[in-house]
């Protein structure tokens, strides 16, 4: 599943474990800020569990007992790596952990690159044709009108913006595809800071395609 047209697609991709890394940062950050989406992911994971139940592998008991014996033997082995890293205290406490950890600095410390009226800061997690970046739209300003090749998912981290589809505040995630010509306008009271992931052009999936992705640049 490599087409993410809306929020539901992204939540499904996250629950099924199929999102590329940049989108998983975006969605995990959104989930931190959006309890309803978190609940939806829990439901989708429950469906995944029910589907796992249905995956009834044809296995002989003999086959499984060798496997079980091997695992029982290892139960007392020391755990190879300890628990996952504790919540990072570096970075900006206002940022969700998945992004805070990745960014490692405060929003006020970001070396914004000016692109027209916008500030842009690229994170380098993108694989293939994805880009992941922070965007700053000055208060009350409009982003230049644009369309997308592929889709762009935008998570509001501070402030808010409006476009033809409505208003988006902190924690909201907007997904637009190439059919949409959208022109987000930042709320008048403060700069709007967003995390945006674009998936453009061709992204190959499947075992072979994934190996080829690093070699294909458009």
């Amino acid at each position, binding site marked *: 599943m490599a087409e993410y047209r809306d929020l539901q697609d992204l939540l*499904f991709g996250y629950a099924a474990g199929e999102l590329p890394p940049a989108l998983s940062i975006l969605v995990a950050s959104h989930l931190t800020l959006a309890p309803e989406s978190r609940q939806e992911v829990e439901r989708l994971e429950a469906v995944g569990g029910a589907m796992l139940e249905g995956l009834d592998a*044809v296995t002989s008991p003999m086959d499984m007992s060798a496997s079980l014996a091997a695992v029982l033997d290892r139960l007392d082995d020391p755990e190879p790596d300890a628990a996952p890293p504790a919540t990072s205290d570096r970075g900006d406490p206002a940022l969700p952990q998945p992004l805070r950890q990745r960014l490692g600095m405060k929003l006020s410390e970001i070396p914004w690159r000016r692109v027209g009226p916008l500030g842009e800061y690229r994170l380098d997690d993108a694989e293939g044709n994805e880009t992941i970046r922070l965007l700053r739209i000055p208060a009350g300003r409009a982003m230049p009108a644009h369309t997308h090749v592929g889709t762009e998912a935008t998570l509001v981290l501070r402030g808010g913006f409006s476009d033809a589809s409505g208003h988006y505040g902190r924690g909201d995630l907007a997904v637009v595809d190439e059919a949409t010509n959208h022109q987000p306008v930042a709320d008048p009271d403060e700069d709007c800071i967003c995390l945006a992931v674009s998936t453009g052009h061709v992204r190959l999936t499947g075992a072979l395609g994934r190996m080829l992705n690093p070699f294909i640049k458009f």
Partner: protein
Amino acid sequence: MLYQPAVAAENASVPVVLLSMGNVTQGKRPSGRPDPQFADLMDAVARSQDRDAFSRLFAHFGPRVRAYLIRAGAPVQTAEELMQEVMLTVWRRAALFDRRKAAVSTWIFTIARNKRVDSIRRESRAELDPNDPALVPPADETADTLVERAQATKRLNAAVKDLPEEQLEVLRRSYFDEESHSTIAADLGLPLGTVKSRLRLALNRLRAAMEEKA
């Protein structure tokens, strides 16, 4: 044998739900026991490192996790090794399992899914941190009771069983296979929109089943 389902006899009053969607061929014994029993086994593992309880969980979930990893593209031998690692994680993290939050099948699904991303796709997966100070809590935090959770799981499993095969197939492929919806559509000889609407219909039915109050 170490992992015969002795629990079934103790819980004769609990109806045994057959949780199948493909061909269930696990000999004479029922392939699925109601989840509360798995939750009891998890508790036994967490509280007293009960190896017998673990063995029963292994007998049920081991083959399923392995089938899941094979379906996600792992060669058989790799899937076997990864499945063993998943089950070791179940043993080591048993204390983190909370039966009020999820069914055992859900919890093990998430561990297997993360293993698939890390080891088969070799990608890093950003995870939600439940202890994040930035976490926005739900507006009304009414946790399910144990009974409600167990019943929701039962309803969900029954609803999966009742799905029309055409929806189930799309659901299965969407959860398990490394394929885009367009590929699924091409394989099934269907328009993309039909694939997406089948997935949506299936999820709506299952969501409704989970939320229905007794």
